[in-house]
């Protein structure tokens, strides 16, 4: 239980190999990370206030700096700049063992020479707790996680899911102020991952601690987090509740990253005339609803501005051909997902994906090559400045 504050946190990796690589002609950067004279900036100006008992998820693609940020909070990486406080105490130079945090690693990181019981008891023994108290806490944690029957086993005799439970048990057994999780479900198969995700939600309700969770899986982020921090190239793109980042993405990256299937995008030109906002693209012309229009104007949308329009696949509705604001194209391929069908269509504006509920299919068959018309649900449009990628509908 603790508040965690990150102020202007920065991580710079000194670029030691720059000279030799440059001589060999291999100096071209392989990432979009900022490179300064000091080195590669892996995390840049990270600011976040995490409330007591909050579950915050850091999410982003590989190499975006989410794990680095978590490791800085854990004390496993030196903080190059900024201030990290836990419960108001500055932690920048405090060793990991004195931060009263616990961490669950992607690779479990169990001690292979110890039994499950000893793995759970290890952090308590280091704190010199009485044996009876250690035993009580170990058995309590084992019961919460359903691993009591494996307490005498060595980690090598456990399955992946059981090992992950032990790793979580070792983290919760000493009631840390902050519980850090670095992609804890990534090594599990899809079925087990779903099961463990549900168990994490239950676990979160049963223990009172602050969670910081790192994942590249946006489904995990959406289902687990009170708030989500979306990162790209070491920079925070948006912080908000799952609903906020889904409904009001700040920029085109967040819009594309959050949501499965990914948001559809097409280029258009904005028209703002006498309070009437419309979008025009080849084969598409639509008037924007009043509430969206006011947001576009409020965010500086100008007449003739080049924009990228985004619309989520589940907010595209099958329509009659030639209907106002509709788009026409052909079915390319369909994917039956069970309760929904993902229809991939090609139009003059590019490829689109529609999510059609299976119950709405009726007699319709979406065979490849079938002509198709669809329109956006009212108010479902997201408009982004094409030059900056910033949302005009936020």
């Amino acid at each position, binding site marked *: 239980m603790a508040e965690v504050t990150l102020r202007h946190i920065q991580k710079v990796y000194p670029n030691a190999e720059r000279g030799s690589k440059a001589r060999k002609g291999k100096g071209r950067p392989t990432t979009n990370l900022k490179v300064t004279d000091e080195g590669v900036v892996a995390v840049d100006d990270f600011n976040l206030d995490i409330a007591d008992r909050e579950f915050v998820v850091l999410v982003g693609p590989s190499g975006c700096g989410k794990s680095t940020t978590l490791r800085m909070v854990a004390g*496993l990486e030196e903080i190059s700049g900024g201030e990290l406080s836990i419960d108001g105490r500055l932690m920048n130079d405090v060793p*990991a063992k004195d931060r009263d945090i616990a961490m669950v690693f992607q*690779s479990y*990181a169990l001690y292979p020479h110890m039994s499950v019981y000893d793995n759970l008891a290890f952090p308590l023994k*280091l704190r010199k707790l009485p044996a009876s108290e250690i035993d009580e806490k170990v058995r309590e944690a084992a019961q919460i996680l359903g691993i009591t029957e494996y307490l005498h086993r060595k980690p090598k005799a456990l399955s992946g899911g059981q090992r992950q439970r032990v790793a979580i048990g070792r983290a919760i057994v000493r009631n840390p102020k902050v519980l850090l999780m670095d992609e804890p479900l990534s090594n599990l198969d899809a079925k087990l991952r779903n099961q463990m995700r549900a168990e994490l939600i239950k676990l979160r309700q049963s223990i009172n601690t602050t969670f910081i969770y790192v994942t590249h899986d946006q489904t995990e982020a959406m289902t687990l987090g009170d708030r989500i921090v979306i990162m790209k190239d070491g920079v925070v793109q948006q912080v908000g509740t799952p609903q906020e980042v889904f409904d009001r993405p700040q920029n085109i990256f967040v819009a594309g990253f959050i949501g499965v299937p990914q948001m559809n995008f097409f280029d258009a030109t904005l028209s703002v005339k006498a309070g009437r906002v419309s979008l025009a693209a080849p084969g598409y012309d639509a008037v924007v609803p009043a509430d969206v229009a006011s947001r576009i104007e409020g965010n500086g949308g100008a007449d003739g501005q080049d924009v990228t329009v985004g619309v989520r696949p589940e907010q595209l509705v099958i329509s009659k051909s030639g209907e106002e604001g509709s788009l026409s194209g052909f079915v390319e391929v369909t994917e039956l997902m069970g309760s929904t069908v993902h229809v991939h269509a090609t139009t003059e504006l590019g490829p689109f994906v529609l999510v059609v509920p299976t119950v709405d299919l009726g007699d319709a068959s979406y065979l490849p090559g079938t002509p198709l018309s669809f329109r956006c649900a009212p108010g479902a449009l997201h408009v982004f400045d094409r030059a900056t990628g910033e949302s005009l509908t936020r």
Partner: protein
Amino acid sequence: MAGSNSTALKGERRTQRLLSALLAVVCVIWVLPVVSVIVNAFKLNTYVKTETFALPTAESFAGLSNFVTGMTFGNYPFWKCIAYSSLITIASTALILLFCSMAAWYIARVDSLFCKVVYFLCIFSMVVPFQMVMFTLSKTADMLRLNTPITIPIVYLGFGAGLAIFMFVGFVKSIPLEIEEAAAIDGCGPLRTFFLVVLPMLRPTLISVGILEIMWVWNDYLLPYLVLDINTYRTIPIHIQYLKGSYGTVDLGATMALVLLAIIPVVVFYLCAQKYIIKGVAAGAVKG
């Protein structure tokens, strides 16, 4: 098709039989010296020279007299030789295991020029023959008072460090770093991380390095002969050498008896722990 297959199979079997026979001959040649030591340890001295490979007969059988002669030979008690050999072997091996595993952990985990240079020097020390450095070494050991059974393990530590660090570094690199990070978060400082987490995980390599070092130090003749004051301190191999009397007379029966006594502990130890040798060497070599 079937015919050609069976011909190939027969050819393969014949090759295997030939190989087995060849290896059996090699094994016999390999084992012969050990067998001759055992056989001759129980024969009278005169028969050792004339019937070297024959089994003891009623006439040539010496019972345990060779052992008694060997152990009571000269004016230096044999039990002292056993004590010095044991002390030097145990202390040297313990020092090598402790310091080399710690050094290897540091070298494997800290990415610095210093570590690379130290590691290179350790590897380099393995290719330098002992004979190249033995005279300067004996002089230096004398100057630094490393010429007693208590201090000679430091010399052994220097000579054994190359191979030991090479094997430990290979194994440490195969240990996931996250385990040590988890220990740090759980409350371990560097010392506790090493002794409570890393060292127990090094067990297979500790055992294999330990066996190799024990065999080397226990059987070593040249280093203690050069460094120790041999009138005061004698290890078993040095004492055996004294059975060779003046004018070239050698009590071969007693020599064989002492050689047998000297190799018994190492052979027993090796047989008990041989599976770890193979496991540890393979782990260090492959996972590195």
